[in-house]
């Protein structure tokens, strides 16, 4: 259960304060696949960053399973990110000099899994998202965009997070591959009962999610 109340984020710029988010409130149930749509600059990424504890809100609260993550210390926020959140990014953001397998193992390390169990778990995760064993030993540059996004989904799911936050997960992919990635995320939210919140431009994708929030000028409009 994710409850966001009256969330605001103000950035100080040279031309004065800028309200990226202005009193956003929403509730998403556990296991729901939600999408956030909006134009560039509407505050989508800012909202996602706050939900993932990448940044601290100016005002308001974010309650995840009864804990207000906005009030956690920096160290606790890092632990929250490691254990409760999985990120999927538009640019995949895999570590370039680590293999696909090592990228997933890195997340397991941060999640606190003992070293001896990491490899088997990472191999399982990658197989689940459709990465073949020989591809698992490749570095990201030797994988296609779709494959890289699959690896990043495996990484996001590594520590069985409560919420997966996806920032334009299909934005860099052709429509066919994008659809496959979307289906993968959809399947996972069903099988693992994971809450998925995806920011997207794509109205086709947004239409298939359980719920859609529309952001405009830092406010929820629908």
């Amino acid at each position, binding site marked *: 259960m994710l409850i966001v109340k009256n969330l605001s984020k103000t950035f100080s710029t040279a031309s004065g304060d800028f309200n990226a988010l202005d009193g956003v409130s929403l509730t998403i149930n556990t296991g729901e696949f939600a999408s956030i749509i909006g134009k560039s600059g509407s505050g989508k*990424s800012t909202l*996602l*960053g706050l939900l*993932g504890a*990448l*940044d601290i809100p100016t005002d308001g609260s974010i309650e995840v399973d009864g804990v207000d993550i906005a009030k956690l210390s920096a*160290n606790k926020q*890092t*632990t929250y*990110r*490691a*254990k409760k959140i999985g*990120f999927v*990014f*538009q*640019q995949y*953001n895999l*570590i*370039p*000099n*680590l293999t696909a397998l*090592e990228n997933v*193992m*890195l*997340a397991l*390390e*941060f*999640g606190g899994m003992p*070293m001896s169990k990491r490899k088997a778990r990472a191999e399982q995760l990658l197989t689940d998202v459709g990465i073949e064993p020989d591809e698992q030993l490749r570095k990201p540059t030797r994988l296609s965009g779709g494959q890289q996004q699959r690896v990043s989904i495996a*990484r996001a799911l590594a*520590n069985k997070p409560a919420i997966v936050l996806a*920032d334009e997960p299909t934005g860099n992919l052709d429509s066919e591959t994008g659809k496959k990635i979307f289906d993968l995320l959809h399947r996972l939210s069903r099988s693992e009962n994971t809450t998925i919140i995806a920011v997207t431009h794509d109205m086709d994708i947004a239409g298939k999610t359980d719920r859609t929030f529309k952001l405009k000028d830092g406010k929820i409009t629908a």
Partner: protein
Amino acid sequence: MNVISRGIKNALRSPLRSGAIVLMLAISIGLILSMLVARSSVNAKIDDVKSNAGTNITISPAGVMGFAGGGNNLTSAQVAQITSTAHISSTSATLSDQMGSTDTNLTPSLSLGNFGTRQMRFESSGSSSTSSTSAQPSEFANRPAPTPRTTVTGTTNPDSVSANGSSLTITSGSTIDGKSSKLVSLIGKDLATKNSLTVGKTFTAYGKTITVSGIYSTGNTFQDSGVIMPLATIQNLTKQVGEVSSVTAKVDSGDNVNSVVASLKTTLGDKADIVSQAQQAADSVSSLQSIASLALAGVIGSAVAGAIIILLAMIMIVRERRREIGVIKAIGGTNRKVITQFVTEALTLTIIGSIIGLGLGVLVSGPMTNSLVSSQNNNSSSSQTSGRGFGGGAGAMISGGFNRISSNFSQVTSSVTPAVFASAIGITLLIAIIGSAVPAWFIARISPAEVLRTE
């Protein structure tokens, strides 16, 4: 795969760039080592010179230097004062004179030459100069000049005449007792050859017949053309009883040399010039001391250069991997883990640089130290190798080269004392710490929200 192995792996991520950083580091670390080696060997040399500097003090009459200058000989009273000074363990006294053709039947083995002629130009101008110094004994009054002369040294210790201060080399016969007043002598090798003198033969000096007791050789042409007799014998023959032209006093310990010099200056006043070997040694190493401080400046300079190289390299790497650092933080990596990873990376570069740098240092510091302080030992070894190179062609030249490297190596390793090694390691660690501290601060400030920025 843990944070340490990731750091090491990252250090080798871009071989060309890492290679360039490592090479720059290696050069500065090599410089640090060779400067430390230079400094320690220069310091060792300074200590060596100081500790080997004798405790001898030479007291000569004020104004007299060899046979030049003017003044009065030291009297027996003054010699007694010197002998009774505290901390003086032994003394030897000498009285030197020059014998012309009226004094002796010996033919001088030194030719007069330009130098001798010039020294005697005043005496050849006539009898007026000699009449003004009529206080001198009559033997000296009417010397025909210019002619070469034979130096005779009366000494209480014949060994004190040797050029290097060690015992006099007697090539035949036996030495003489400096304390006696017998009409015996030691003859220099050149003078003996010139006059066909051998042990047991006699010659005339100051109207007396002197027996040759032994022939000596010093390798010094001036000294090998002289005569040595007991001090008392010369004092009697030249009618200068009790007088000496030089006293060499040995001080019981190097620590007391300065106090003895001071007390002698008080007792003898302006009648004598006093020179201590320790003072001469200190003067001679002052240039070495400036080399030592120069080397220290070199150590500091190369350490600073090394620190700046690794610092800039790490700042560059951190800036370039901003996004990657953001990703690691976003997926739950703590600041400490990210910093440990980058410090490991910096340490890996520094360690590889150190290994290469120490190797460079070993190759470089030998010649570098040689050029700063040329020591006899190295001169002989280099002349040896060059000799082989000419003699035996290419093969010998290569072996000469290897000899040179191995001699440098043994020389350097002998000067790489635990202290030098410890300071080299300490400086290297310091470089790595400085090189990581600032980038670590940058890392801590990178926000995980960096990942959401689209470029």
